[in-house]
């Protein structure tokens, strides 16, 4: 299965209101090219933190579906976040880990998932009940459709082919992305006072 195919299926299954947090690198680049939209937040750094940003967003915006587009190298940097997600258990969080078993953005050195490490099992061990690994597109499509229509949190580990990075990130102004995203994410908050 190729990363582009996973992304293409994913964006075809979401609605305008759904929010996406995407890690820096090819995932963000491909998402941008495939379907740039107000509800996409492209990270440029923040190594490992996509799952945490998605958690905070899912709690703050409970009426929106929040989709985290993460990588194996990225989540391996922040495994504690899976325990925090399990403790908080936001029903609107879908954590998609695109697992190419490699640090593709920095030359392709293998990650631990190339050897013994099973991220879906780690997520389950952390306490996230809905965690599974998918290896084919049809399987991904079924699992993602279930994830987006049932209460989460869900973790979907998608095994994809290695495709070494060539991109340098989209040239979008980051502050524009932040402002556009926040306008889309906004839920009515009558308690927020002006300062």
């Amino acid at each position, binding site marked *: 299965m190729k990363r582009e195919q996973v992304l293409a299926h994913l964006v075809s299954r979401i609605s305008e209101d759904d929010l996406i947090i995407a890690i820096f690198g090819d995932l963000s680049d491909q998402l941008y090219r495939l379907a740039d939209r107000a509800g996409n937040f492209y990270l440029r750094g923040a190594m490992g*933190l996509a799952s945490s940003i998605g958690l905070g967003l899912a709690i703050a915006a409970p009426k929106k579906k929040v989709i985290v587009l993460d990588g194996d190298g990225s989540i391996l940097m922040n495994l504690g*976040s899976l325990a925090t997600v399990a403790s908080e258990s936001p029903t609107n969080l879908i954590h998609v880990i695109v697992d190419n078993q490699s640090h593709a953005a920095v030359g392709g050195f293998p990650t631990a998932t190339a050897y013994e490490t099973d991220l879906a099992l780690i997520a389950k061990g952390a306490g996230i009940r809905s965690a599974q690994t998918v290896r084919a597109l049809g399987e991904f499509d079924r699992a993602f459709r279930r994830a987006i229509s049932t209460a989460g949190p869900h973790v979907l580990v998608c095994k994809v082919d290695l495709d070494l990075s060539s991109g340098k990130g989209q040239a979008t102004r980051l502050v524009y992305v932040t402002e556009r995203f926040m306008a889309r994410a906004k839920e009515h908050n009558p308690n927020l*006072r002006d300062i």
Partner: protein
Amino acid sequence: MTVHEVIVNSLKKGSVSFVVHIPDKLLLPLIKAMSDDSFFRCVLVTREEEGVGVAAGAYLGGKRTALVMQSTGVGNCLNALTSLNIVHQIPVLMIISLRGSLFEYNPADVRLGLSLQKLFDAIGVPCFSPTNQEQLGRMTDGAIALMETSKLPVAIVLDRLLFSE
């Protein structure tokens, strides 16, 4: 008033309702007070850097946020503060208990504690250290206003001497 009452008042006045925390002995009364108060949504995280991420996500979802931690944890946050908050203009109020200063018993906390102000200066994060309760309230109010204006992370550093024994 106690330190935690002053801080809670300022956070409420400034609509800072989303709080991420990492346990700390000095800040325990504050964390307990906020956890027991329905105004606040509190999230306990495993590591300070993770907390920066959770708070940033909540900000993107429309909340004003605070991150409550020890000064030692700031060392875990530097990449997140620079490559997430500063670059995307995502503010967060950091409420930090200072380790490594007067009466410190753990040598491991000294170097980072004594370097805290310099670390914040180096990455361009405003940092304020109140020396009494009146300043604490004014500075916390001011820090909330400043983070909204500047869209920067802002730190309030609490010395052990602020807390009555």
